[in-house]
């Protein structure tokens, strides 16, 4: 600042003495308290650095004297949420599956919890919406392999299928192509017959021959039933619903008969607690196909 007062000729107001390309700045002094407010914000910043986590270091960061941490806040709120859920979880543990479904509050809680557990554990195979894919059943429909009642679903989730344990759901679709149980021509005829059961386009003459194999030498009817409607006792799929676990094309059916099938599902009792399995059961049952 120059030592002399400079007055703007146009307005008659004193200037700050600063000039840029002939433009001068009028001096309209700010109140001093404004300046003090500015200083106090600077002081505040320093106090903040001391009190709160602030500066990144080479490893870690300055922690601050108040011990504040976002992570511990999250941990606290998670614990609080868990505590809030605990009374529902206790109720779930005590209630039977039917009782859970009959109580709107428990049902809502079980479906919400089941949905979250499904997304974490089941969606990898069965899909985000439980819509399934080749080899992994769609859980939305009413076409159940091992049964769609609450108890049946619970047992399937609890013990799994074909995972080697004694209680697991167990059945074996034989490899009809091995050891000449059926010749390729017979397999072809049987596949035509299976397609006819779901009213898909097929060769009528071949299907007629396949009918004889299905109910005769092949022994298919012993598991899949006289009418091909399947048998949930032994996990034999219904062949008449045009809902296919591995696909309904001629080639796929031929492959299935030739090589057999045997999908595996883990026993979730080993990985999840009993309440979670109950919630999963109720959730899967609520998806629309529950019986």
């Amino acid at each position, binding site marked *: 600042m120059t030592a002399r007062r400079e007055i703007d000729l146009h307005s008659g107001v004193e200037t700050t003495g600063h000039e840029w390309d002939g433009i001068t700045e009028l001096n309209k002094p700010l109140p001093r308290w404004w*300046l003090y407010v500015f200083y106090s914000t600077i002081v505040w910043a320093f106090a903040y650095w001391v009190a709160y986590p602030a500066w990144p270091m080479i490893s870690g960061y300055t922690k601050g004297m108040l011990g504040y941490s976002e992570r511990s806040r999250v941990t606290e709120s998670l614990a609080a949420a868990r505590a809030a859920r605990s009374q529902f979880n206790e109720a779930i543990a005590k209630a039977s599956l039917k009782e859970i479904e009959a109580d709107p509050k428990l049902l809502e809680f079980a479906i919400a919890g089941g949905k979250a557990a499904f997304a974490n554990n089941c969606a990898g195979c069965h899909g985000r919406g439980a819509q399934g894919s080749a080899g992994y059943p769609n859980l939305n429909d009413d076409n159940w392999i091992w049964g769609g009642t609450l108890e049946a679903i619970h047992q399937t989730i609890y013990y799994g299928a074909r995972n080697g344990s004694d209680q697991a759901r167990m059945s074996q679709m034989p490899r009809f192509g091995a050891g000449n149980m059926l010749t390729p021509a017979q397999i072809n005829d049987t596949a035509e017959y299976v397609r006819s059961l779901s009213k898909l386009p097929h060769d009528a003459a071949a299907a007629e021959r396949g009918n004889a194999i299905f109910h005769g030498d092949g022994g298919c009817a012993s598991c899949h039933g006289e009418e091909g409607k399947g048998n949930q006792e032994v996990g034999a799929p219904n062949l008449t619903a045009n809902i296919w676990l591995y696909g309904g094309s001629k080639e796929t059916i031929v492959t299935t008969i030739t090589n057999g099938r045997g999908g595996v599902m883990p026993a979730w009792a080993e990985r999840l607690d009993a309440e979670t399995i109950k919630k999963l059961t109720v959730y899967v049952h609520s998806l629309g196909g529950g019986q």
Partner: protein
Amino acid sequence: MSSTPPTASISLTVAPGNAKRSAGEGDTPEPTALYAKREPVYPKLVHGEFRRIKWAIMIVALGIYYGLPWLRWDRGPSVPDQAVLLDFEHQRLFFLSLDIWAQEFYFVTAILILSALALFLVTAVAGRVWCGYACPQTVWTDLMIAVERLWQGDRNARIRLAKAPWSFDTVWRTTGTHVSWLVIAFFTGGALVFYFRDAPTLLSEFWNFSAPAIAYIFLAVFTASTYLLGGLAREQVCIYMCPWPRIQGAMFDAESLLISYRGYRGEPRGPHKKGDSWEGRGDCIDCKQCVVVCPTGIDIRNGPQLECIQCALCIDACDEIMGKIGRPKKLIAYDTFRNLDAASHGDRAPLRLIRPRTMLYAGAFLLVLSITLFGLSRKTILDVNIVPDRNPLFVQLADGSIRNGYTLRIINKRHEARACDISVSGIPGASLRILGAGTPQNLTEIKPDEVRSIKVYVTVPKLSADQIAASSALAFTIRDRGDGTLAARQTNFRGPER
């Protein structure tokens, strides 16, 4: 100065520089510092028509502010009975018979837009009417000054007190002033929290320290800010903190009625002895009464200024003097730049209320108002939103029928429970199942003021499903069993591509 429109140059009385803020006329060689000490303002009490209007507005405004939370409004047993309540817990704004839900917050936006447009219109017509009469900063500052006057006396006594050395007299007067300010500030902050929680409940909670922490925090914040802004900072808020004076400069023009010193009548000013002739001189006797009553400490005779909140107290002060010396009143008055200019040439310019600017603001106001009223008239009290399942889009069942899942969000804005029938239409044979519902299957109970989410499955039998497109229109209808209120929404039913 941003509030000075280009036409200000016609106001011939603008003195070079601002008498208060310039360094003065002395030839001190030292430049003024960039920061200045605040010049305390000691407004003198004035009597007159505008002072009476301001007292009345202050009483009404403060009465509404402190009293409104205590007004009751019967809405039935399940909802709060406070007439005006911003209920964060239930996400509602209750305003008399109007309930605004969180998802209808656009109504509040509309009210804010309407307020802004009304402010623009008033400003275009008569300048800073809001600042001068109704702004909380003005009202509370006025109240604080009145209290200060009770303890310390009028202007001259206050100036003396400020300069006097510490004594018993100065201490009790100053202490009394600040304690009174703090009490007012405490009740101001106290009244505010009542707008957010049932007032009688909160009051009893408050004294046994069971009120929510946020209530105490807000009470403290508003007590502190009322004391600080209304008691201590006063005109500094209007001059340095508030953005509105800067914005308003763009809203008035040469046709706006602004508080103006009629220089054509007043100049040349000068002291006048009783009995002297008024020939060849102006009516202004330079008594500075307009200056001493000004709450922002400016001289209105310097022309329009950013600091002027247009509170009209200088009009009252000048009128009183004009009455005493027997000259016509309204040497300071609400007047337009155009009329001041015309009058300086012995002419008159009539007031033009109807001009593009006011018509634009009024038109925008009416447009927003009619949209808002239309919206309010269409406000539903039973509504349903439909969220179709996306994953899977549809499910084929064993018998060939097709099923879709939907989440219905039924909103009951009535303060009584409803029993509703849900039905679907649009696709022959479509049947409905509600997840978790008892029998009868399609009856749903919705509690008062509730948004109820229900999961429903719609199944279309194979015969019908084979005939409809991959995406067909489906309508849900919610019907109240009691009063027959309907809510209906269209959605789509998905099936396989054929």
